[in-house]
């Protein structure tokens, strides 16, 4: 029997608000010394009460609108009860049955076709404290609590079970992260834990409409591990099913180093969260004027920017999507374009795109840094492309100049001059080298005259070699032709 994979994704994203969700403490806990971003509210002290961070609600509303959700007139908060030492109040203030956004969708690209993944809901909750487990050299273990993260606003985005493969899941996450970055509501950094993903995975006979036993997969800390974990889990379930085994509803953790998922908790041991309305926070009215104003204030989102890049700069779909997936890369691209294009020059627009998606992206990846951290400014990239355009540097030399520029941040013109990488476009200089090459390659000249095309290429190569690649190849060809015919 062939099976189809059914995946639903739950994403938790920390919001980039200045203060925490329910108190005035600063939300930028990461760089702060432990337990310095705390107050009675986020410490869960007796008697303390939460107050809603309006900005956080706005961020969730923006996200919900960007994900084509409906915004109900009312939203409310609920207590989700479970005991754990990282949960200061013994319950999390979350949203159970009246989320801020419902019934939306997000478009991904599947084999060149647009596919919509349904968004079930977008709601608001709060992060928990961080537990730090320690073991002394004597083997004594203890756990420390850093409460700085407690109460940091967290948005949960729950998809419908519309995802059919690990690759679709990856596409969904890339797109979702991109949207959050465009909105400026989250860094979307998965490695740092500000963007987390859990998945519900099941399989079903191809063609079936029913949902089968689902397994929740947790502990996936990068896009790559999401992909690997889901591939693994779908294959595991197929194997169990094909061997006549029975799948059980459970939570499984992804073990990155072993490359497997492992059972953590069965359905019988699942928490009963005992949700009930948060009595400390009155229901919130999401007024239509508020919603309309928020919608009108939404920035350009990845899809429309992609389309604009295609129509305005003539980029192919593939390039436009890659560029616009990353807001910072797309911003960088447009900053460069604005420097060098007073009137539309599609050729140049494509050249810049090629450099960004090619060597620039490769070097960023190699150094493991973000676009903003690169030493190359859009002005330098503009100068660099100009040098190529004006034949000051040649193709082979340009790669070297770019790498040097990326490493040092020096202006490209200076680099080319310093390292002798400027192209020789001076005809008399080239003529001299051509004559020397003709003189010392008699056999090749004979071959050329006998009509062997190969010989011409060889001679051009010799000229390029003698100039260490700096001669303008087109001029070399022309001069060589002229000199040989003139003989």
């Amino acid at each position, binding site marked *: 029997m062939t099976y189809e994979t059914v995946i639903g994704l739950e994403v938790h994203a920390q919001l980039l608000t200045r203060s925490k969700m329910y108190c005035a403490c600063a939300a930028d806990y990461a760089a702060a010394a432990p337990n310095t971003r705390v107050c*009675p509210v986020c*410490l*869960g*002290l*007796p*008697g*303390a*009460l*939460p*107050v*809603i961070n309006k900005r956080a609600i706005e961020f969730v509303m923006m996200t919900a609108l960007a994900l084509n959700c409906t915004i109900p007139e009312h939203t409310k908060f609920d*207590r989700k*009860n479970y*005991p754990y*030492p990282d949960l*200061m*109040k*013994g*319950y999390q203030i979350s949203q159970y049955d009246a989320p801020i956004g419902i019934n939306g969708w997000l478009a991904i690209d599947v084999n060149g076709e647009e596919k919509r993944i349904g968004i079930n809901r977008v709601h608001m909750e709060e992060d928990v404290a961080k537990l730090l487990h320690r073991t002394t050299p004597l083997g004594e273990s203890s*756990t420390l*609590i850093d409460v700085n993260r407690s109460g940091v606003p967290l948005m949960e985005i729950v998809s419908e079970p519309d995802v059919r493969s690990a690759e679709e899941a990856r596409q969904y996450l890339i797109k979702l992260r991109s949207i959050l970055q465009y909105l400026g509501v989250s860094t979307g950094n998965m490695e740092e834990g500000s963007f987390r993903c859990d998945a519900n995975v099941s399989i079903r006979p191809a063609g079936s409409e029913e949902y089968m036993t689902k397994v929740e997969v947790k502990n996936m800390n990068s896009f790559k591990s999401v992909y690997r974990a889901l591939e693994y889990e779908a294959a595991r379930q197929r194997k169990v099913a094909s061997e006549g085994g029975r799948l059980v509803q459970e939570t499984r953790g992804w073990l990155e180093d072993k490359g497997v998922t492992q059972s953590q908790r069965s359905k019988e041991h699942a928490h*009963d969260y*005992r*949700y*009930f309305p948060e*009595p*400390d*926070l*009155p229901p919130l009215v999401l007024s239509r004027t508020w919603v309309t104003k928020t919608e009108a204030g939404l920035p350009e989102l990845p899809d429309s920017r992609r389309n604009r890049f295609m129509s305005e700069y003539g980029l192919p779909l593939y390039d436009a999507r890659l560029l616009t997936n990353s807001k910072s890369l797309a911003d960088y691209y447009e900053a460069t374009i604005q420097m060098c294009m007073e009137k539309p020059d599609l050729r140049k627009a494509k050249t810049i795109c090629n450099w960004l998606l090619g060597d620039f992206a490769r070097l960023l990846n190699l150094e493991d840094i973000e676009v903003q951290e690169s030493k190359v400014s859009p002005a330098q990239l503009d100068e660099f492309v100009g040098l190529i355009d004006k034949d000051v540097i040649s193709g082979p030399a340009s790669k070297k100049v770019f790498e040097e520029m990326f490493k040092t941040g020096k202006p490209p013109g200076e680099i080319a001059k310093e390292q002798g990488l400027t192209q020789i476009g001076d005809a008399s200089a080239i003529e001299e080298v051509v004559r020397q090459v003709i003189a010392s390659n008699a056999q090749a000249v004979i071959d050329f005259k006998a009509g062997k095309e190969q010989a011409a290429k060889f001679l051009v190569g010799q000229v390029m070699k003698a100039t260490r690649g700096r001669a303008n190849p087109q001029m070399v060809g022309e001069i060589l032709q002229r000199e040989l015919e003139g003989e």
Partner: protein
Amino acid sequence: MDLCRLTIHEAADLLKKREVSSVELTEAVLHQVEAVDGKVNALVTVTADLALDQARRADERIKRGDATPLTGIPGVLKDNLCTRGIRTTCSSRMLADFVPPYNATVVEKLLGQGMVIIGKANLDEFAMGSSNEHSAFFLTRNPWNTDCVAGGSSGGPAVAVATDETLFALGSDTGGSIRLPASFCNVVGLKPTYGRVSRYGLVAFASSLDQIGPLTKDVTDAATVMNVIAGHDERDSTSLPHPLPDYSSSLVPDIKGMRIGVPREFFVAGMQQGVVDQINAAIALLEGLGAVIDRDASLPSIRYGLAAYYIIGPCEASANLARYDGVKYGYSAPDADSMWDAMEKTKERGFGAEVKRRLMLGTYALSAGYYDAYYLKALKVRTLIRQEFEGAFDKYDALVTPTSPTVPFKIGERLDDPVQMYLADVCTLPVNIAGVPAISVPAGFVDGLPVGLQLIGKPLGEETLLRIAFTYEQATGWHRKKPAVASISI
């Protein structure tokens, strides 16, 4: 003149005229605490040094001419109100050594006025109880008969006021916790409209029902304290934004033409005849003072109030008290062999029986599959009760009922029968369910034990309540009667 016997307004008058100092007043009160508290056990913590220090500063302030009606006035706080640097125990082993790093909003306001804190008063553990027998530390006794209960859960505050161990007290009221002990101890107790007084810093029992209010020697003082503690607080999202009236200006002895309903459902089966007689006498008096009485008012859903209350309260409590796990503060079981074991042992030993009973009730009622049958149904009852109160207030300016079906009962009498104990609140808890204000005022005695008259108002109707209560008080003077135990000559 024994200074501790003064009301706030009498003392403020003398302070203002500089006939007495706050230090003298505070010393007199501390003296009374020393003489009397051993017999009634109202206070968990006495902050004598702090009080004298605050009194000295209050005197300076009075000298500067920038005194307020509460400057230099000694008061006590129920021990579930957070006080910075003063332990706040909730009369629980769990928080026996807990010292909050912050002040409740009401405490902050009172301190801003120059109040003198005499100490923290006893309560049923985490305010769960009607008799003060559920304090983990000791039992507060009724000053009118020390074999009887003080009422709860604000038993300590009520007794402290009744025995002149303070000029006033703050309590909290979730189902009657201010009014019942006020009634049992012959003092005035006001439960304001839900949201009128900030709950920030009140250790939560049932968040949608809890409300802080004053316990005072007379109605005038209740208005004075309300003027300070009421008002919007941005730290409490459930606090009301409405402008604050001057409550003292409603102290007018005139209720002519006021429409007062007597809802028959509050006269429950098993009610003491003596109480019924006193309340009827009080109603007749109100009528005599010019009020238009309707003895046939009805709020039929009230009879489901007790059941709804014992779902909503415990459900909220089961979440509110989950934070006491021994990890961050408070009691922590020292002999556990794992994290889960530590959390379990902490709760097992840190909480008393009544708290555990309610936590179990709430946890059960919220569990998967039971929510609709219990919590949701209780919320529906709540809506019905609210609507019936709204309907009643279309017709009446206030409702009048007994505060308690009985006078104070004997210590130990109801301890083994929780339902009998819960019935003590049957007249008071509908008020919390509806979120409306109510006041209990002294209304006479049955066999030497006090009876309380409860007046219930519409949302933000405190002024009307104060006016009726003031008029009634002026006409009777029951509040001036003092228990013998308080007047032991020193």
